[in-house]
């Protein structure tokens, strides 16, 4: 079994490249896809009421525009990139490298409880280190208002291990643009003021969740709805 450190590095695609080398330019090609989950969610998003929305994907001008045009408040936090912070690597009692999940949650997703009406997870669970997935879902449960909705995408087995990781841009009530981005290094300061290096983009699919895994993952939520898309992605809309 691969160590966590190896698994951690496997998060990133393209092992042949020098991770410390110059950052390649972001790929700009975008694919358009229909999203049944988003269409379902749009019924809520089109309401006149001001909603609080948390977008956990890569910063998307299109998403910020979509929500602010509808008078909603949009919070943006790229959780996948945050999970690649090398300073999160620590050692357990046996000396094996592990990700410090407690610290991760102490530094990320810091919002008042029951703040959000909508959380957009996109494909976060598929590409994030496995040890963080359950704690993150637990935290998201507490951040959602009762009746709040969470949209997440999961690859099916048919997608294959090399399924590319995309950014998702909302361009219509049921339409997304997908943008594949290449890895690049960024140095950022955390809340403690310490500079951390994170790698954005180019993530590897970590696992495939089947329906039962997904139901277990969201078992604390009130309801769950599956939408199977043509591109081997299951869209999941859960309600707290």
């Amino acid at each position, binding site marked *: 079994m691969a160590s966590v450190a190896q698994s951690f590095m496997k998060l990133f695609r393209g092992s042949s490249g020098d991770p410390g080398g110059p950052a390649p330019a*972001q790929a*700009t090609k975008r694919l358009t896809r229909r999203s049944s989950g988003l269409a379902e969610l749009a019924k809520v998003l089109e309401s*006149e009421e*001001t909603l*609080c929305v948390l977008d956990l994907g890569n*910063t998307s*001008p*299109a998403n*910020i*525009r979509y*929500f*602010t*045009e*509808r*008078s*909603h*408040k*949009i*919070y*943006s*936090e*790229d959780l996948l990139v945050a999970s690649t912070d090398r300073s999160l690597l620590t050692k357990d009692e046996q000396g094996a490298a592990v990700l410090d999940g407690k610290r991760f949650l102490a530094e990320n997703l*810091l*919002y*008042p409880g029951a*703040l959000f009406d909508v959380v957009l997870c996109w494909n976060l669970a598929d590409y994030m280190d496995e040890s963080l997935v359950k704690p993150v879902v637990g935290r998201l449960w507490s951040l959602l208002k009762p009746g709040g909705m969470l949209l997440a995408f999961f690859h099916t087995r048919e997608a294959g291990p090399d399924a590319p990781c995309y950014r998702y841009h909302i361009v219509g009530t049921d339409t997304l643009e997908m943008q594949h981005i290449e890895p690049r290094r*960024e140095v*950022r*300061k955390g*809340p403690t003021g310490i500079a951390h290096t994170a790698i*954005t983009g180019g993530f590897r699919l970590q696992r495939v969740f089947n329906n039962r895994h997904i139901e277990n993952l969201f078992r604390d939520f009130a309801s769950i709805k599956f939408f199977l898309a043509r591109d081997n992605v299951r869209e999941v809309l859960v309600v707290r």
Partner: protein
Amino acid sequence: MDTPKTVEFAHLGRSVVIKGELSGSEDLYVDGQVEGTIELHGNSLIIGPSGQVRANVNAKAVIVQGKLEGNIHASERAELRKSAVAVGDIITQRVAIEDGAYFKGKVDIQKDGAKPEARGPVASASGAAAGASAAAAKTPVTETK
């Protein structure tokens, strides 16, 4: 919108480090380091590509090309250019975020004259409590790519 000519701005160069309260009544271009607060009511602030600001910022217009850790309250508009790394909340009337910019925080669009909610301390990204009334009408939002 293009970056205004910096010759018309008061200029803090790369080697300048300021800690404390920075206020003024003219436009300001920061390419150095500032830690504290920046108050430029009715004037514009540009954080240049080399700028590193750890401060709550209050200005008419704020354009970020470098790094900003703190909340932006821009009475007119806020722009994050593609090289921007911004952590904090943005409260403004119009926002433009270029593709490639990194942003962690909240965007709260407020119509003209709306009272902004109380802002939290520097670096408490998105920590402000919900509850402020946002614009009820559709707000024009620009986006640059």
